[in-house]
């Protein structure tokens, strides 16, 4: 077992109607209070979408792993997370010649989709895979010098039973703990369509 240094995790959570959420509320509840994890509810902090750029740029360098946790709205993030990217990831700070604030950090998406996993392929109704659909975020991470890991995805949320959702929440917590404790080797994630396809194998280093 490698004894890597602990990483601080920043979860940027975006859900505009958390009270009617089934999955994200449970996922959030599973990691909200973890030690070494900063849970940042964007809609709660900026209900009028007026993002405090300085505060965000202060927060990011103090963490090593950034998680975008959100439902998959129209193959993308909810509006506030896009606004967050537009405002916070400034040229000269996050990217560009002098923009090195995020260099070497890790970005992970944690997403729930209504569609089942099989729908996300060339033959499925969504015609593209999750990785393909997430290309804009992956490329954003790359441009900022960040590593982008395969996403944590909960598919088919409408058909999940309470028990299944609870299982996903536990997985999510294990993943975040793993990221925090440096137990998610980037090499082992390569080629995974979703990072939680076999968590046991991944975390059991």
């Amino acid at each position, binding site marked *: 077992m490698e004894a890597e240094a602990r990483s601080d995790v920043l979860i940027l959570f975006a859900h505009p109607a958390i009270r009617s959420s089934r999955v994200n509320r449970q996922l959030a509840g599973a990691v909200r209070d973890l030690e070494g994890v900063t849970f940042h509810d964007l809609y*709660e902090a900026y*209900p009028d979408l007026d993002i405090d750029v300085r505060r965000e740029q202060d927060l990011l360098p103090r963490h090593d792993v950034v998680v975008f946790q959100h439902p998959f709205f129209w193959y993308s993030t909810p509006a506030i997370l896009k606004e967050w990217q537009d405002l916070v990831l400034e040229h000269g700070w996050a990217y560009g010649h002098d923009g090195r604030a995020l260099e070497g950090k890790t970005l992970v998406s944690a997403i729930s989709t209504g569609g089942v996993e099989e729908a996300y392929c060339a033959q499925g109704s969504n015609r593209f895979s999750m990785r393909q659909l997430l290309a804009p975020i992956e490329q954003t991470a790359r441009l900022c010098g960040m590593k982008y890991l395969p996403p944590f995805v909960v598919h088919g949320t409408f058909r999940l039973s309470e028990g299944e959702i609870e299982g996903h929440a536990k997985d999510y917590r294990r993943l975040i703990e793993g990221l925090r404790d440096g137990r998610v080797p980037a090499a082992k994630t390569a080629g995974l369509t979703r990072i939680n396809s076999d968590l046991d194998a991944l975390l059991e280093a």
Partner: protein
Amino acid sequence: MYGEGFFYQALIYLAAAVVSVPIAKRLGLGSVLGYLLAGVAIGPFALGLVGDEGQDVLHFAEFGVVMMLFLIGLELQPSLLWRLRSSILGLGGLQVGVSAVVIAGIALGTGLDWRSALAIGLVFSLSSTAIVLQTLQEKGLMKTSGGRSAFSVLLFQDLAVIPILAMLPLLAHAGAAHGSGHGGHSTTWVEGLPGWAATLVVAGAVAAIVVGGRLLVRPAFRFIAKARVPEIFTAAALLLVIGIALLMTRVGLSPALGTFLAGVVLATSEYRHELEGDIEPFKGLLLGLFFISVGASIDFAQIVGQPVLIVGLVVALITVKFIILVILGRVFGLAHDQNLLFSFALAQAGEFAFVLLSFATQQGVLSLEITTPLVAVVALTMALTPLLMLINEKFVQPRFGTREKAVREADAIDEANPVIIAGYGRFGTIIGRLLRANDVGATVLEIDSDQVDLLRKFGHKVFYGDASRLDLLRAAGADSARVLVIALDDPERILELVETARKHFPHLQVLSRAIGRTHAYELIEAGLDTVYRETLDSSLRIGFDVMRELGMPAFEALRRTRRFRVHDERALRELSGKREDHKTFIHLVRQQSEELERVLATDSGGLGSDVDAAWDTEGLQREAGEEPGSPSKE
């Protein structure tokens, strides 16, 4: 029967007031002139409904002045009084001194004995507290620097009455008929005391008011308030005012001054507003009665008998006092327009002159043949004051405004501001600061001179005065501006300004503060597209924070708040069209509660339940049961 006589009198006075004051107001003459005209109408020389007893009523009604000063004291913080000290003592002292000397000199020139001349000078140096302050208050000019200066001078005059009363007997001489010892003036405690003891008694009385006001009045009122009998609180308020007035009279001070002092002492107490509310109607009625009696006491027979003499004296008196006031105002650094206001306001003889003239006659200082025409002069100059102030407002000031505009226009070309803000109090300053912070040029119209001075220090382009005046708007650049922000706090004046702006500057986008819902309706009916209810946003923000406090997610709470706001604005707009022209108060009240009912009715039924429709997953969940692969949404 005495009672019947009293009611008959009351009927006449009340009817005269009720008929003439609203008419005078409607004609833009102000209530004081209305009362005075009512007095003339019922006086012995017109309808003859009141006779000589008018004089007694006049003395009784003078108590209204005492109450007015109490109320003014209540609104005056001690610190402000302290700041006014130089204008009270300096400006006031000089006004009384110079006016007395000049008028006495003129009287001497007409061949009067020097003692009579000096007595006349002293009596006519005073102005009318009642008429001036009431008129200034009605026009909302008390807080302007001209209004404050006038107030300071009047305060000094109230002080000066005491030594003048003391001096008059010393001016007695053989030429005039001797009257009784001490006329209508009641005995005081200080009479016959040596100077130091008298001073001690007076100082003691003043100290009693200050200390008593600080320490005794509050617990006493708290005890009285606990009884929860409102009329007893009113009785206590009246008791306080009358008690202090009597105490002051007993120690030989002006009762008005005493109650004024008590008012200042109580200005910081928590009972200030209750006291104001309780005394206000009494003061209003008594002052009205006072003005009516002044009108009724104008001796038209006298005027008709010696028209040249009386009219000449009136014109001479007003001219002399006016010139002295203008010079003093200039010396004390009043701006041109404020100086005109100040001088027009104080250029008359005052109600004290009635008392002093009759006292002087009794003391044998002046003969009846001198005082009789003089009493007519006093009444006439008092009656003319509201008229003079009206002339100043309507004809003299506009000319000044135009002049000012001509001066400004030279530099207005390159720095013409796109925004005019009318009113720079609590509301307007916030708008102004926001605009200034973002380099949006705004021209400000403000009636409070202190505020204006401060703004000018910071380089704002500010105009003194009433923003509803057309010439002032024009001077502020309304012809070239794009937006007019109305941030006044008086609903009536806001409506006036909206009307003026829409009529004369139709290109201006008018954004107006609305004072409450009814006012908002009126503004919409006046043709404004958007109104800004002054408390709406703060109230909604508190509502929003309450929902958050109780655990509702912020974004949802915000959306629900916004939804409510949209709904409320729509309801306002819809209901405003359905309003009828209500004539009576009862009708207004009924309609208001009906409207509230309608508003409340539209509020219920799950307002905001569709806020999250876009993220409603129920439909998707149902479909998910039928076919796989819904495109989006959790």
